[in-house]
């Protein structure tokens, strides 16, 4: 493991850093180094500290972006308990870890100043040339990333990037650039402005290559990174056609659902069905990030609407409709709408006149009691396939998606498709539990299934798949299920107790204390209950401003970074489950990966009352 990553994972670097205790020399851990993780770790064995290099443990010369006195609020509130990062969010930012040697403050500051300070304080000297950035991308603190992003977004690299031609500066710029590239990787393709600045910078650097032989290693690395990121510098043509990915639930394909999921990007092409008021549909091929306008244009073209027709007032509008009949008009400028649809929601194209007459598609699910895979397969198999699939989905989410999901309004829409798909899946599993139980007509069978589902939840928990576990428990707590008194009565006492335990574990009281404690004891790999992470991040985000009078709230960004770092930790090891590839296993796998669910709560209630009318 790279020393920096090791540092990052030290327990000492948990989120709300302990109050201000400067790590003693030689200790080298604590909150300090992580803040300065852009720099080489002083403890790195493979790195000869240059003459100007840092002394072990004395991190004083590294960047400290924290104000000495006050983070934006209540800095000195003592933090109860050592492991507070499980109990986030308190809307208060955690107490400040002061710079260990009390070096000059750099924050809050305007983004440009932050960056300048950062570059100013970066390590210098050829000694650091080797391996700069190699495998260390993740160590860059978020605040720095954000700082860079701000600058990039502004499209105006601060002047000192060009001036101050010192080798030291060049090193610094290169180091930042490399980290930036490594963290963002392919996402840069989706972001034109950022990509452009990087390209420009890259070209400038390339021009200077011959002048600075000391920088060769970094430049080589940069070259490789730019290549892998596919930021084609020379030609502006888009990359060759990628394969179209079938995304849609209503576009079920057994063959593709069995393949390992790979991350979606905004430029990916996907298929999507758009329905007409009479439930005719066309399947369009579209970029995942397409705007509503683009989608409507494709539909209009497919349906061969004449130009005058589409130019007239009765132009098409795009509507999402849930299975319950709830509908909403999408604005023409909205983007990436596909992944935000509800489980059984569909897109409809209609004119304003026909909007009122839209009716949802008939429920796909036919009541065929006892016919689904869940009655055949062993609970272990189902649980393992759930875990495996959710791990795939979880792994597909880029760390930035968590940030972007929460910062959404503040920095323009970047795609968070993979995160949205996981959230969608989470609610799908919840409804699946209810659907399967309610489609089970005989009481005995239903009680048996209930027992099985609790067993599945237990195994998921064992697998450290808290997402499936939570979803199943929430699903069983659905009012349409919990009211089935007769069914619950038939449940063996052992399982009743077990479920009571599960309910306690998912109890939201004291900010999900129980769950956070359990999670804290788990070692990676694990799948957290992602919605809770988003809740934490939302609290952090909404609790304080990112920019105030043009100054960056570095403390807040640190907190966000720390939270995201826990996600990195959860995924730091691959999750491997032993799954056979026998035909029956494949059948279970296919079943688990394309659940058919009723997401219409009214319908669930209807079924529930039909099964057990009298019970209260």
């Amino acid at each position, binding site marked *: 493991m790279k020393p920096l990553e090791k540092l990052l994972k030290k327990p000492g670097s948990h989120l709300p850093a302990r109050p201000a205790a400067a790590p003693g020399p030689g200790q080298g851990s604590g909150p300090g180094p992580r803040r300065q993780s852009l720099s080489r770790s002083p403890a790195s064995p493979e790195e000869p500290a240059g003459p100007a290099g840092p002394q072990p443990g004395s991190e004083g010369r590294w960047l400290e972006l924290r104000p000495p006195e006050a983070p934006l609020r209540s800095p000195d509130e003592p933090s109860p308990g050592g492991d507070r990062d499980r109990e986030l969010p308190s809307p208060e930012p955690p107490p400040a870890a002061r710079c260990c040697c009390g070096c000059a403050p750099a924050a809050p500051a305007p983004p440009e100043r932050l960056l300048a300070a950062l570059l100013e304080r970066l390590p210098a000297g050829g000694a650091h040339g080797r391996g700069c950035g190699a495998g260390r991308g993740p160590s860059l603190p978020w605040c720095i990333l954000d700082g860079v992003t701000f600058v990039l977004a502004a499209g105006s690299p601060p002047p000192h990037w060009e001036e101050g031609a010192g080798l030291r500066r060049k090193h610094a710029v290169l180091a930042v650039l490399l980290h930036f590239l490594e963290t963002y990787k392919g996402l840069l393709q989706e972001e034109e402005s950022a990509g452009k600045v990087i390209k420009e910078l890259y070209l400038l650097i390339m021009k200077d290559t011959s002048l600075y032989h000391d920088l060769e290693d970094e430049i080589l690395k940069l070259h490789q990174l730019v290549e892998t990121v596919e930021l084609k510098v020379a030609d502006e043509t888009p990359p060759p056609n990628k394969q179209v990915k079938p995304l849609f639930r209503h576009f079920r*394909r*057994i*063959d593709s659902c069995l393949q390992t999921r790979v991350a979606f990007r905004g430029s990916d092409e996907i*298929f999507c069905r758009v329905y007409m008021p*009479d*439930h*005719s*549909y*066309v*399947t*369009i*091929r579209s970029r995942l990030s397409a705007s509503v306008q683009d989608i409507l244009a494709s539909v209009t*073209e*497919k*349906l*061969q609407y*004449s130009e005058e027709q589409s130019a007239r007032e009765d132009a098409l509008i795009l509507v999402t409709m849930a299975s319950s009949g709830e509908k909403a008009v999408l604005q023409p400028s909205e983007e990436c709408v596909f992944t935000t649809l509800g489980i059984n929601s569909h897109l409809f194209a209609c004119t304003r006149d026909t909007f009122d007459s839209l009716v949802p598609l*008939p429920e796909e699910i*036919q009541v065929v009691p006892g016919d689904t895979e869940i009655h055949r397969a062993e609970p272990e198999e189902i649980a393992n396939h759930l875990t495996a699939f959710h791990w795939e989905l979880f792994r597909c989410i880029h760390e930035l998606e968590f940030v972007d999901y929460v910062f959404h309004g503040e920095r323009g829409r970047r795609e968070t498709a993979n995160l949205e798909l996981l959230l969608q899946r989470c609610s799908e599993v919840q409804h699946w539990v209810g659907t399967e139980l309610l489609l089970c007509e005989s009481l005995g069978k239903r009680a048996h299934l209930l027992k099985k589902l609790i067993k599945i939840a237990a195994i998921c928990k064992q697998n450290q798949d808290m997402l499936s576990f939570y979803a199943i428990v929430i699903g069983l707590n659905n009012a349409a299920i919990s009211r089935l008194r007769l069914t619950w009565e038939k449940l063996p006492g052992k399982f009743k107790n077990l479920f009571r335990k599960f309910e306690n574990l998912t109890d939201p009281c004291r900010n999900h204390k129980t769950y956070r404690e359990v999670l804290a004891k788990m070692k990676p790999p694990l799948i957290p209950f992602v919605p809770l992470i988003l809740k934490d991040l939302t609290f952090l985000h909404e609790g304080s401003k990112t920019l105030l009078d043009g100054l960056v709230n570095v403390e807040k960004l640190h907190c966000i970074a720390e939270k995201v770092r826990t996600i990195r930790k959860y995924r730091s090891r691959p999750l491997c489950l032993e799954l056979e590839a026998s035909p029956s296993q494949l059948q279970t796998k296919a079943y688990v990966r394309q659940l058919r669910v009723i997401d219409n709560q009214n319908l669930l209630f209807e079924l529930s009352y039909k099964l057990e009318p009298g019970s209260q």
Partner: protein
Amino acid sequence: MPEQSNDYRVVVFGAGGVGKSSLVLRFVKGTFRESYIPTIEDTYRQVISCDKSICTLQITDTTGSHQFPAMQRLSISKGHAFILVYSITSRQSLEELKPIYEQICQIKGDVENIPIMLVGNKNDENQNREVDSSEGEAMAKKWKCAFMETSAKLNHNVKELFQELLNLEKRRTVSLQIDGKKSKQQKRKEKLKGKCVVM
């Protein structure tokens, strides 16, 4: 498995670019465009009469490329009647129908009771003809299905094609002529209503 609805499902197959979508859109919307947009899968619905009542004709326009074998199988198993389209300007496109026909046989078993139309489209492009209409007829005979040449561009034989297909359905009476029957029905309803009022 019980029938999910009383829709009558027609599936249109054929190689890419032979004019499947053009035929369907000409029939459903009465329009025609020269531009080519590859189809993935579209379904259009139209009200027709079936066994003296109203039902929905569901026409599924499929993709010409063989990207989705699983979906093709699904369409076949769900379909009641099939239109196999080739272009008279491409012998290759007729050849490409063979595996599709074989798959229909395989999935549906007894093909004789299933309405299938073999269609040579683009017969407005006689100058580029590669497949003689006699060849199409011979193929249809071999496949025990009906045959027709059409032009979506000139709106030649399009409506006839669908009517003919429905006529082949022997298990129930399906007909495009909804207007006449509907009005009759409506008349009857109105009559009844009238009576009710009198009563």
